[in-house]
């Protein structure tokens, strides 16, 4: 499909990041798609692409160090352990956390399940201390209507296992959390509040301070889903006032197969394990066993060592760019994209209409064209977006749409990518014959 859309010249401020230099670090961006088209990758919110530095780090580990960490006394085992633990320190420092509060999981989803299962495993824990946070009948767990399924289903299931009640904060028409009933929903019965820091579908950045303040008043734990925030903005858990923060390596330039649970040490220390097995033990006897201290208590089995090392390289890459700059970069792109989309008749953004407390996930609908079909036309032009309900089915239901098309940005995204998106939407309107009716 070819189309020429004349654009009014506009003043665009230079982007905070050097997009061309960054693109040169991402081998995949040199390939073409759909008959020789430049890859316009606007699906970093689903998974990010990986810079060479991350790929090199994984290769370095396998070619030079590979061994199971925390087992064995040979030189490779020592070096693998040192590399694994150094990566833990790097990743911890990225969010302002000490090493002992960093637990490696497979991804955010597993990290959330770890906490949810620990809270129900607590009910039957042998040691009284590990029953501190047990959840049962009469207790309440609070989530929001904005959550990704990964931060909803584990809590729903926890409630079903334990007889606790799931409650939630609703949404306003402009894509924000409705906190008008916060004081009622988060109350003395609340054991834990699980909330996303940045919505994967609406882009909304939530006012966590208000929520954590209320949770502290009633003595509830606070669990923050950072899958869409940690990759995109500076985070310091010291300022977050939460008990848990989870994020996924693959959404922040790192490998798949590694995620992180940060937990406040004094809370982690009173939680029973989720998965059990090798390396998470203190003493094992046939009659029963005791567990290691955190974080090892939550890392059963040989870990995803190469991926952890790759994630540390991703963190160093992001630190090299500066997370403040990454955030500014995406804010500039988001503002530009919202402007460009607003110019197209029939396009409706689902989520906050401006860049105030908003990240770079932009979901939209196009009148008369189903999101799958929008995505198909964009794909034909080499533009990768996500379509569907984005694992946040209650959100699309709340806004009365069957699905949306979603564009997400990252460090290699430039104005040219957003221009391609806007032109692509117009091309879809032309293809499906919905543009001339305006």
């Amino acid at each position, binding site marked *: *499909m070819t189309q020429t859309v004349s654009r009014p010249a506009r003043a665009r401020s230079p982007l905070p990041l050097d997009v061309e230099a960054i693109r040169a670090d991402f081998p995949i961006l040199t390939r073409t798609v*759909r008959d020789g088209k430049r890859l316009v990758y606007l699906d970093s919110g689903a998974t990010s692409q990986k810079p060479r530095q991350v790929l090199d780090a994984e290769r370095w580990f396998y070619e030079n160090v590979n061994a199971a960490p925390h087992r064995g006394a040979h030189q490779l085992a020592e070096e693998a352990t040192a590399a694994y633990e150094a990566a833990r320190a790097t990743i911890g420092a990225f969010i302002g956390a000490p090493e002992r509060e960093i637990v490696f999981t497979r991804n955010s989803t597993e990290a959330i399940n770890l906490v949810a299962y620990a809270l129900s495993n607590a009910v039957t824990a042998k040691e009284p201390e590990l029953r501190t946070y047990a959840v049962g009948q009469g207790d309440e767990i609070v989530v929001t209507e904005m959550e990704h399924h990964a931060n909803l289903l584990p809590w729903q299931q926890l409630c079903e296992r334990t007889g606790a009640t799931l409650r939630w904060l609703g949404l306003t028409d402009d894509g924000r959390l409705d906190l008008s009933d916060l004081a009622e929903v988060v109350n003395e019965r609340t054991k834990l509040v699980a909330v996303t820091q940045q919505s994967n579908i609406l882009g909304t950045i939530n006012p966590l301070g208000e929520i954590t303040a209320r949770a502290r008043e009633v003595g509830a734990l606070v669990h923050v889903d950072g899958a869409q925030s940690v990759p995109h903005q500076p985070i310091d858990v010291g300022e977050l006032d939460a008990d848990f923060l989870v994020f996924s390596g693959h959404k922040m330039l790192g490998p798949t197969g590694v995620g992180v649970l940060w937990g406040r040490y004094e809370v982690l220390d009173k939680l029973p394990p989720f998965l059990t097995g090798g390396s998470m033990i203190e003493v094992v006897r046939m009659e029963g066993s005791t567990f290691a201290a955190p974080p090892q208590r939550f890392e059963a089995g040989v870990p995803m060592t190469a991926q952890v090392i790759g994630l540390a390289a991703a963190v160093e890459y992001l630190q090299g760019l500066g997370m403040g700059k990454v955030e500014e970069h995406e804010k500039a792109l988001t503002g530009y994209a919202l402007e460009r989309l607003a110019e197209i008749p029939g396009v409706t953004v689902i989520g906050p209409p401006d860049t105030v407390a908003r990240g770079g996930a932009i979901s939209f609908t196009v009148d008369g064209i189903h999101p*799958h079909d929008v995505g*198909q036309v964009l794909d*034909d032009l080499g533009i990768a977006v996500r379509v569907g*309900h984005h694992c946040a089915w209650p959100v699309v239901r709340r806004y009365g749409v*069957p699905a949306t098309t979603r564009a997400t940005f990252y460090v290699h995204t430039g104005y040219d990518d957003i221009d391609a998106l806007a032109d692509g939407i117009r091309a879809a309107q032309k*293809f499906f014959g919905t543009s001339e009716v305006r």
Partner: protein
Amino acid sequence: MQLESMYQDVILDHYKNPHGRGLREPFEAEVHHVNPTCGDEVTLRVHLEGDTIADVSYEGMGCSISQASVSAMYDLVIGRTVPQALETGEHFRTLMQAKGDLSVAAKLEDELEDAVAFAGVSKYPARIKCALMSWMALKDASARAMSVAHPTTPTEAKS
């Protein structure tokens, strides 16, 4: 430009002017099928006269492929017996597994009529399930309708 290979005019026509849309009475079975990866859904009713499909009525929301597919299916199965309709459904499934091989489509032209236009969809793995959803719903609904019509006849296990 590969888009036209999928969005054949026949498909776009069915999408814009769907055949048989709307839920009607009478019916012996009604099913609701969803595509959990994208949220597309269809509610589909089957009315039998004997073993013959006298009516298929439906409501749904979804992309052009899923909506055009149910419309083309409607044209194909009305007036056929349930086994004939299910056999057509199997042909359609074969077409969806063709990975864009047009020789498969050529062989199935007589059986599938308009629905052979969906051949291009088989090149796009993510969209095949869109095209198949209505056929899955039909299979489910007709099995249920048969068990209503012939309560003692064992039918396939309902899912």
